[in-house]
């Protein structure tokens, strides 16, 4: 099981920003310095937490909170099976 805070810390590290700025309502484009950083973040989160996202998931992602929720749900949902 992973927590939302663990994912938040990971995002903070990957984007090299202070964890206090990784707020749920922050937009990914506000936080990341470029389109590439967002794509890299999504791919590295999947590797770090051993989860797989699909395009349909990505269409629902608007904010940092959405991305954290997706990661936690996908990881913990799988762990619980």
């Amino acid at each position, binding site marked *: 099981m992973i927590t939302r805070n663990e994912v938040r810390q990971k995002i903070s590290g990957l984007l090299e920003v202070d964890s206090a700025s990784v707020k749920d309502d922050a937009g*990914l484009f506000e936080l990341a310095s470029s389109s590439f950083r*967002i*794509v890299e973040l999504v791919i590295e989160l*999947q590797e770090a937490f051993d989860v797989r996202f699909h395009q349909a998931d*990505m269409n629902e992602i608007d904010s940092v909170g959405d991305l954290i929720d997706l990661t936690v749900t996908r990881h913990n949902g799988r762990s619980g099976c």
Partner: protein
Amino acid sequence: MIDGNLHWLLSYYRASEISGALFFGELSRTLPPSAIQQDMTRHFADEASHARYWTDCLAELGVAPLKLGVAYQDRYLDAAGIPANLMEILAITQVFEKRVVSQYALHGKSPDTPEMVRKTLARILDDEERHIRWIREALKDLEGAYGGETISAALKRYTLADRDVYRRTTQEHRERIGALRLAAR
């Protein structure tokens, strides 16, 4: 001095080539050793060269490139969602490259296009067609990992998103791109 619309459009092409070079350059740096890594490295270097060609072309026409904030592909993530893996990055790139070929070919048909612009378009089109080929082959190689149907679905989804981005871009810059479309008919 060149026409203001052409000045803007060539600057827009340059900004998009720079965005492509930066994106694929970063991606090339993170990819593991593979054929895709090598092709991607050539691809980003080509995009950087294209940015130079447009810069040189504008200089030849007596103007400096305009500073533009947003490139065409910056709108893709909003319209199509964030690609979740390498296959989806290649699929969205394939669709984008086809759009570039189509736009550059359309521009080349416009009767008032200066010779210098025409030459630059032709020079870049050779590379862009090669880009489409390598990505198509790479996507074919990825069929084992992702499945042919998944890849086809991704290409279809990004094609629809591209049409939406192109429609919105041409509406927003109607006086710059729209005039070109009419002239090329």
